[in-house]
């Protein structure tokens, strides 16, 4: 089987169109982030989350009514994974939360209520996790910059980092879209954060494969303008890119649908990140290097691209 037999797609020549597309996507993601903001999980805000399961059929609205009659008013009640499973969110922690928990158990006694899980995070820990998450993301970006800068050249490092920042922003934007449309529960918690950092790793991973080919081809195809070398390299690695994305996506989609509520947010974030990570390696990272060589280093990278494409093939 072979999906691509010697592909020769003009990625580089059409880069401006994709740049505009990315620009629009990133701008709208940033607007979404600023306007709607994230819903943070209790990992970051502090508070208590109780997941319960009842034996009898119960709708979210009925549950809300039952609880409010018993003077229990959680900040949020929503379904959790399966039917008759609910997630309640409380601002309270410590003793206050324990009291609410026991009141909850008494109220729902007739429904054979069962606690599936309960998380309580003190406000101070929440603040700490928030700071650590921020440091982790920044650190990983710096680490990528340094590693690729050393293994290749620093413009490549910057290209990879710009691509991954692009990926993270876009993924965050999609998190807001899917969360607000209530398609999937996507508050920012530790799982989503882990996924974001894995996306950072994956985005760079994909970029590196293309950069590696460019490095090799620059030696091999001396005298040919950089834009052309880049385009050849992307085409040569295209088959690998598509197959790897396919296998990873296969796995992730299985996880989104099968792995249950705990891992769903993680799997979804990864899915979006892998797709955009692949896109950005081709349309952001490589064009940045091209732009840098042209504008900063004043190298003639294109030298009449349309003509050369034909001759190089011969």
């Amino acid at each position, binding site marked *: 089987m072979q999906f691509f037999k010697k592909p020769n797609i003009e990625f580089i020549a059409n880069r401006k169109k994709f740049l505009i597309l990315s620009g629009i996507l990133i701008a709208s993601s940033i607007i979404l982030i600023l306007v709607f903001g994230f819903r943070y999980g209790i990992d970051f805000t502090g508070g208590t989350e109780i997941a319960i399961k009842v034996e009898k059929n119960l709708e979210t609205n009925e549950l809300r009514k039952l609880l409010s009659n018993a003077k229990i008013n959680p900040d949020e009640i929503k379904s959790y994974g399966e039917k008759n499973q609910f997630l309640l969110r409380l601002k309270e922690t410590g003793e206050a939360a324990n009291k609410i928990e026991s009141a909850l158990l008494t109220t729902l006694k007739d429904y054979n209520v069962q606690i599936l*899980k309960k998380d309580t995070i003190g406000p101070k820990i929440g603040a700490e996790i928030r700071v650590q998450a921020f440091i982790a993301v920044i650190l990983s970006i710096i680490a990528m910059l340094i590693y690729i800068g050393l293994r290749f050249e620093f413009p490549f490092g910057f290209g990879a980092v710009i691509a991954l920042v692009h990926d993270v922003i876009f993924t965050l934007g999609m998190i807001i879209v899917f969360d607000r449309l209530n398609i999937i529960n996507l508050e920012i918690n*530790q799982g989503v954060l882990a996924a974001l950092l894995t996306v950072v790793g994956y985005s760079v*991973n994909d970029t590196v494969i293309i950069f590696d080919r460019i490095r090799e081809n620059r030696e091999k195809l001396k005298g040919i303008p950089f834009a052309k070398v880049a385009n050849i390299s992307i085409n040569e690695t295209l088959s690998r890119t598509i197959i790897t994305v396919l296998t990873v996506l296969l796995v992730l989609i299985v996880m989104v649908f099968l792995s249950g509520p705990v891992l769903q947010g993680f799997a979804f974030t990864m899915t979006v990140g892998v797709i955009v990570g692949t896109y950005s390696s081709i349309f952001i990272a490589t064009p940045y290097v091209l732009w840098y060589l042209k504008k900063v280093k004043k190298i003639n990278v294109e030298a009449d691209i349309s003509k050369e494409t034909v001759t190089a093939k011969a």
Partner: protein
Amino acid sequence: MKKSWGKILLVLLPIVISLFLLYPTYKASNLEKLKQRYLEEAKKAKNPSDSLAIIEKFDKQYGKELLDAKANRIKLGLDLRGGMYVTLEVDVLKMIEESAQRDAIDDIFQEVLEKTRKDAQTSDEDIVDIFKRNFDQIARPKRKFLSDYFDFGGEALATEDKIIEKLKENAKESIDQALQVIRQRVDKYGISEPTIQKIGQRRILLELPGVTNETEMRQLLQTTARLEFKLVRNDENLVAAFYKIDEYLKKEKQISKNNQNLPSIPSDTSIKEKQLVSADTSKTESSDTTLATKGTDTTKAGEKADTTDPYKGLSQEEKSRRYLEDHPFTTLFITNYMPPNGERTQYQRDVRFYNASQVPKGEYSFEIFQDVWNKFEAILKRKEVRALLPYDVEILPGAKPEIIKDNKGKEYKILSFYGLKRDPELTGEVITDAVATYDPTTNQPIVTMSMNSDGAERWAKITGANIKKRIAIVLDNLVYSAPVVQQKIVGGNSQITGMSSPEEAKLLKIVLKAGALKAPVQIVEERIVGPSLGEDSIQKGIQSLLLAALLVLLFMVAYYSVAGLYANIAVLINVLLIVGIMAAFQGTLSLPGIAGIILTVGMAVDANVLIYERIREELEKGRSMKSAIDEGFSKALSAILDSNITTFITGLILYFFGTGPIQGFAMTLMIGIITTLFTAILISKALFQITLNMGATNISFGQPKSVKA
């Protein structure tokens, strides 16, 4: 064939090693199933001794095996098996408050504490520093100094800087002590395989699998433990007070009886009556058992010697009844008496007096049935009763009940209790070390303890002033031991003898060493996973792992044909290795960990894809199969390394900045990357080479036919 042997070994060895590492996990799970069967059988057994025998049979036959297997198996995370995950933080502010001298604390000091509490909620600064700043701002203008509140003993420690330094030192040490005390309490609670570890400077992380009673656990973790040395005051004054309590209770009963005849009962007395009635019935019951099992005529020596018998001329039966009625409190327990300066072995057992004035000088000891203790304690808690006891004395029970059997083999748990001087002579932080050992001359178990110079100095004074008296070692308000002071102990090195077993000595050592929890702890994070969610997560995790793997494997064969099959073998060995390595490091498999493995399956084939695409390219150029394979592997290497190292770096960062579950994910991700490099590069190459060595000239990489020509 011959030159393939090394390669075959390279493929087989990781499989064998992984299986070897995973064997304990397999064995443990089998043995646990077997144990379950035994337990069910035991449940069905007709009588308790039969069922006990069944359980003992299992323990004898497989107990050690199961224990060994368990120690080397992969542990399941709390999210998979259910349990409680708790992060505790030492409450440094509370520690500061506790370190201050109790009678020196005033409104100014409280204000400083309050302000510090508020500031600390939003700041990451050292709490002692915040405290100092607030003290300078609030208390100092009012001409207060730290030395007004803190006394760490000695002039040298009285300067302001030294006090702050000492507070910081205490804060730092308290976490270790908390750790030890909590470990001890968790052990006592009987939780299997708990994880207790220190995180940073102030936190303790606990993983308690299978714990369902969170309220009880919370109490267990948050109660302050305090080791104190208190003077035992089991003297005539205490016993006299006990008899006064008798009188009071008796009088109270009479009053309430009289009141019953009155038309209106004041609400106050009705409450009293209720308490009395409930207390009274319990008393008669329990004192009956006391008399039946312990009371004998010969032990009533004190009574006989006394000439002022108010029940003179009554029948023995009537005497007993009247005595019980008149002494509702002292008949709850047994009082033993030792005359002043008497030999300690010559206790008079179960002495009785008629009233407080008859109590002779000397030393006493008390024993009570454990099931009566709560009633006894309830009476003591009453304000009116409390007022009758010496004001500086408190009554605390022993830590471990003594178990005795009567002729019929029925077990009784008997507690000792002690009257102790309320203010401790010394608290546990002066202890520097304690060792459980044997006395070289008598071969009896003993405990030796040493103290710091400050403690030793005070200890010398205390022991010097209390020779032949008893000093109780009290932890968590339980008396663990009450040794008699034999001589003045100078230098702080003391020896405690009289332990009945090495276990008792060991317990006392732990108490002495770990008992002084200076600072209370508070729960800052708590996660509880119910067992049903855990099972559900395992099921779903394994389902998605299997399905994802199946899809990837099918895809690889479809796309790369024979070479795809080789990649699949490499991926399977990869997963086996990940799990095997986790078992070797006694890692914990959690739900995010399973996610990490699933993701590795997806990413692991990437390395093979890179290589195969290269080989296809080389084949297209017209290279021979062998050189195309060599070329493909070597050219893909740098891309594989670079891409995996970047992912590894993010894994490292996740590991160091993440907590609990995230670390599990990061760990499997990193192990997965290393095993991927190993399997994708070395093992799949070995597979190709073995095939070529066997004489194959062509291996299908799934490329379309036209290209191959």
